[in-house]
């Protein structure tokens, strides 16, 4: 599939799938967190406002909020992560997706691949 992927400055990725948005955390975020040991997902039907925490990813090092890039309603969550949080580390943009959101608003302040890469570059420069 060659659909476009957008990124947030807080290290989420977003992919348009029909009317819905699939959301996960980026490879950079997964690597920075290290091995995930727990993923807390919202309930299907949960309504979330843009910029609010919609999930929590927890590694041995830290627990981190995952922010929703847009207001919307949760359509589906990746239940496989409950028993296999390591999927996020192994395949963050694929099998390690977090949730599917029905957006009620438009995506704003999103970065494309080049913009996100530049952001990561600037944050990891010693």
């Amino acid at each position: 599939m060659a659909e476009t992927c957008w990124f947030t400055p807080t290290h989420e990725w977003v992919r348009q799938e029909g009317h819905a948005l699939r959301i996960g955390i980026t490879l950079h975020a997964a690597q920075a967190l290290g091995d995930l040991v727990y993923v807390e997902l919202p309930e299907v039907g949960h309504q979330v406002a843009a910029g609010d925490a919609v999930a929590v990813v927890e590694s041995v090092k830290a627990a981190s909020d995952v922010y929703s890039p847009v207001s919307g309603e949760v359509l589906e969550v990746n239940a496989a992560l409950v028993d296999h949080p390591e999927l996020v580390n192994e395949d963050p943009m694929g099998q390690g997706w977090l949730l599917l959101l029905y957006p009620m608003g438009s995506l704003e302040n999103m970065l494309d691949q080049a913009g996100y890469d530049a952001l990561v570059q600037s944050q990891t420069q010693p």
Partner: protein
Amino acid sequence: MDGQQVQPQPHPAVPLLMEDSKPGRRAGTLVAGEDVRQALDDLPAHLLRCKPPAMPELSELQVVRHFTRLSQRNFSVDTNTYPLGSCTMKYNPRAAHAVASLAGLVTRHPHTPDAHNQGLLATLAELQQMLAAITGLPEVSLAPMGGAQGELAALAMMAAYHRDQGDGQRTEVLVPNSAHGTNPASAAMCGLKVREIATTPDGDVDTAALAAALSGKTAAVMLTNPSTLGTFERRITEIARMVHEAGALCYYDGANLNAILGRVRPADMGFDALHLNLHKTFATPHGGGGPGAGPVAASKRLAPYLPLPYVLETDGVFRLATAMERPQSIGVLGAFLGNVGVQLRAYAYLRLLGTAGLARISGHAVLNASYVAHGLHQAGYKLAYPQRRACHEFVVTLAAEAERHGFRAGDVAKRMLDFGIYAPTVYFPLLVSECLLIEPTETETKDELDRLIMVMSQIMEEGRTQPELLQQAPHLLPISRVDEVAAARHPVLTWRTTPEPGSPAPA
């Protein structure tokens, strides 16, 4: 003898009590006598056990040795240098413990009427005053039984204050990303919404981001100063002014008070309420999960909301304030007077030090941290904020070493254990990748600090030439490298005689 060989070992395994159990073994002193058995005759038959509970059966000496051996494997301030940043694991004088252990205090019944409890209440009233003087805030409640409970109490006070002001829409708490992890957790626990504020590259709160986030919905801003980066927030009075102009309140996390004790008062920086960690700063050992104490201090306008109990004095008579007298109080947080033993240690410690002693604590804490920071910098460790002066703790980053040599912050920390030094805080603050947060505290001698620097210099050298030595450390401890990921993903929290089907075999 079944022909098995016994191998000499520096750290023989300590089996679980359940594994050492043999049916019928007893501690002789605990076997019930005839009188006890007769007393049980009164119990209705249906309440009696059919068979004894499945408890381990051991001799008294076996139990004593079991726990003594476990305690000997412990790293503690009494045995090892303990530079665990953000935790202030300093030595706590035995004198403070001796005072808190006096028979007249330890054996006091919690229901002792105030009239018979004047000495204790007077002591706690004096502690309230001493902590008020240290913070510059007029009133202190000793009630909270830990730092996070103190945070929760102060936020509940602030939320109640806003409600009484007709400002109930103030439900947001702004927390810089250099704050303690408990801050956002306490705000969420209090039902408030957390918004994160960015930090500038040189380690201060980003005041532009703060200005943009402040609104009519802001209830409070939570700050630790010095922050978890070990740097003093230079624009703190400006920040407090911005927060107050927006109608919000400033909350001070007292976790890093050791850096400013007797030199700067949080009230003078503009804070409205705070909690103190008596178990970090004031002579109670911690690290084992408690008990602690997190007294809250409040400005005049927040004082009516302080939790109970609160000790009052009228004409030389001490008593506890009643709920009727404090109708705006957020209420009672725990049983009786809180963790009185911890409060008494703080009292004794403060009386031992006096006002002049307080400033010596912060002076030496900052001097020691700066000394170690300088020494490690010389040894090739990269300071995360080299342009800033270290307060009581500082951050180094091993990002370059991780990339170039493949050893990480956690590997350095594990290797330090082999040298009898407790690991610094790793991977926190989250702002700095591959970091160690180092807090030597004021109670280490220069000799110990020199040894710490020497050991860490040597480890840096080892890492550059033979990184696997670090990656597999510790080598000399009873337990080698623990698989933290497996432990977190598949925690085994119960012991069973027969493993549950599908559960991993015990290591």
